[in-house]
């Protein structure tokens, strides 16, 4: 004990000394403090009498002495430090090797799982555009990314190419007043590349992700699903259905169109679709570029709904706005 001669202890020793006035708390050797080979080793406890050297009992929190042998004996009975080190190195080596082997095998299988033969030049360019603009900073792809904007893995399969191309040209126009997306000034070619990339992503075998919603079937009243009339034209399915519903199926941004034939004549519908903003400035519906023939097709379809009885079930959701 270096400083005890002078009657004072250094700060460090003070920290290690026995609690004054306290008797040994634990006299059970198994529970006693196993200390002594480290920092406090070799120092004597300033409170003689409180230590049972024979059994190595340091019962009152004293950090001072415990012979190396006693210490090793006590701590070594269960597991020694070198055994612990072996566990660490062995486990890491073994499972690290297994991981590398599985990585090699994954790299072998990924080309087939991802249909790498379809990974064309536009797809690769699309991926770079995706990264250069950090689309993942809002969206998820394969479920990875941010949670601010929709999952895009199967967006091409869900929305169709024309809708996406139109949307990318001016996102806010398609969802006015909603959460905003950056308006990028993509060229036509860049949009094509992005769509190629997303289409390729949609074809990757994701082992069942995203899952088919298990409760969807329970939530839809059976009657509503049978929308009548002639089959909807493609342009309707890819663009209009994103916001409007017929027979309960479709978007909820605009009103349901099941009974639009009662409210509007053929001519009114045609003018409205041509430029909604002109008829009702500020409406949520954007101007959608279409050929006159496509407009005719859509209106024909909507009028054909008159032939089917209106669905009996309640409308699924209240529309955000009506155009009346």
């Amino acid at each position, binding site marked *: 004990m270096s400083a005890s001669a002078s009657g004072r202890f250094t*700060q*460090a020793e*003070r*920290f*290690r000394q026995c*609690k*004054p006035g306290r008797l040994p708390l634990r006299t059970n050797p198994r529970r006693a*403090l196993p*200390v002594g080979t480290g920092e*406090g080793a070799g120092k004597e406890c300033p409170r003689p009498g409180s230590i049972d050297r024979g059994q190595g009992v340091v019962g009152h929190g004293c*950090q001072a002495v415990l012979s190396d042998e006693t*210490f090793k004996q006590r*701590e070594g009975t269960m597991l*020694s*430090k070198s055994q*612990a*080190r072996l*566990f*660490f190195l062995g*486990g*890491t080596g073994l*499972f690290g090797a*297994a991981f590398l082997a*599985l990585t090699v095998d*994954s*790299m072998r299988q*990924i*080309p087939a*799982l*991802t249909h790498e033969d379809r990974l064309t030049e536009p797809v*690769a360019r699309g991926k770079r555009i995706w990264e*250069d603009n*950090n*689309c993942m*900073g*809002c969206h998820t792809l*394969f*479920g990875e*990314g*941010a*949670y*601010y904007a*929709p*999952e895009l893995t199967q967006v091409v399969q869900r929305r169709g190419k024309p809708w996406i191309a139109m949307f990318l040209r001016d996102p806010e126009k398609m969802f006015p007043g*909603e*959460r*905003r997306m*950056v308006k990028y000034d993509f060229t036509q070619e860049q949009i094509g590349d992005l769509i190629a990339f997303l289409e*390729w992503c949609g074809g*990757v*075998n*994701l*082992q*069942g*992700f995203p899952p088919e919603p*298990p*409760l*969807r079937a329970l*939530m839809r009243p059976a009657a509503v699903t049978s929308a009548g009339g002639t089959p909807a034209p493609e342009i309707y399915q890819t663009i209009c259905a994103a916001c409007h519903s017929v027979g309960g199926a479709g978007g*909820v941004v605009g009103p349901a169109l099941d009974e639009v034939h009662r409210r509007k004549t053929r001519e009114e519908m045609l003018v409205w679709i041509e430029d909604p903003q002109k008829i009702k400035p500020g409406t949520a519906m954007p101007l959608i570029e279409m050929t006159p023939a496509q407009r005719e097709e859509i209106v024909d379809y909507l009028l054909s709904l008159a032939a089917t009885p209106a669905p009996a079930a309640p409308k699924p959701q209240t529309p955000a706005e009506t155009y009346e």
Partner: protein
Amino acid sequence: MKYRTQKIAYWFFASALVLLSLQLVYGFIMGFARVGYDTLHPWIPFNTARAVHTNLLVVWLLCGFMGAAHFIIPEEAERELEWPWLAHAQLISLLVVGVIAIGCYHFNIWEGRKFLEIPRPLDWLVVVNVLAFLANIGVTLWRGTRHTTTSLVLYMGLLFAALLYLPGMLQVDNQTVDSFYRWWVVHLWVEGVWELIMGGILAYLLIKLTGVDREVIEKWLYIIVGLTFLSGILGTGHHYYFIGTPRYWLWIGGIFSALEPLAFLGMAIFAIAMSKKGGRRHPNRIALTWSLGCAVMAFVGAGFLGMAHTLPSVNRFTHGTLVTAMHGHMAFWGAYAMIVLAMIAYALPLLTGRRLWDTPIANWAFWTSNIGMTAMTGALAVAGITQVNLERRIGLDFLAVQKEIEMHFVGFLLAAALFTLGIALYIVHFCRHGLPTDEALSRAEEDLPADWVPVAK
């Protein structure tokens, strides 16, 4: 503080706290955007705010780890840091690179891969920077008189963190392969080598704060980092379920990632057991509070909340929803933010010579920030579970569901305000210590006040 060069740690700690504050600002920008106030959208769209938020998180944690290393390594190796000037240069260049990267994000310049957004040329600067750090610390350790397990584990953690950054720089055309190696960085960092860093720092703090013998603590340190790698390496598979990789990852990832909480559980039991064994006799009780809090919150955030969504049958529905964000917040906070804050709380009185341990402000900082973070996690959990049920189970439209859960983000923001108050108090506590000084140098093992008498409590 025994060595002059340990003072450098202070500047790393101070920088870490500045970056943390900035991180919170960008968190609020995103939080407000989510409740409809996205007025900053033209200048700071969500993806910019997010990249800044998460990158600042990583940089301030690394800064904190480096500070911890600059404090711990000289003391463990029993010598001064090899090149003090290099440490200063390295900190400054790290900050400069960080600020440039964050600036770039505001001008749509990045490499949009989650958590690794830093533009490619800056990646190389980061590599050089980290090499300089590792060389400095490594040579100090090498030439030192003592090679302790604690310092080796800490050094190994830092070294492997640097090595694992490299696969993240691989450039490929296949999105699946890209993702595959991105996880070598992101997952093998937080659920692998960073746990070594955390374990090393925690072991050091427990040795100092509880007085339990080094041999005992270091033995358990080996067991814990052993468990980490045993489960965490193949546990990477929990990110390979649904990204276009072979099906066997579903069960390999599931089984091994389900074992990952063991390491965190071990860490919590270890910390509590050691503090019981040694008794809470060290006067810097707030540092011990942070250390124990860290071990416990890491188990809750990473172990428990990680386990909650790691099995493939659950993850199929929660993958890529706010449930992930819920877990991400508490895990990063508990495991890594808290270990850095614990280290700062321990080192600060020793660096500055001011013994402001256990002040009311320090205690309020601990409790306010932890209650705030717990409430934030709760709000994200409610939002996340609702999202999973409405969007993934019932199949409602994404944006319609987001509208429904908007109100939970009001709660989230209130909780975040409480959390921020806690961090502000911590920073006040930090500033009250003043600057590091050579007067704090002491050969004593512990800088305890001369009149200190252990309180029997």
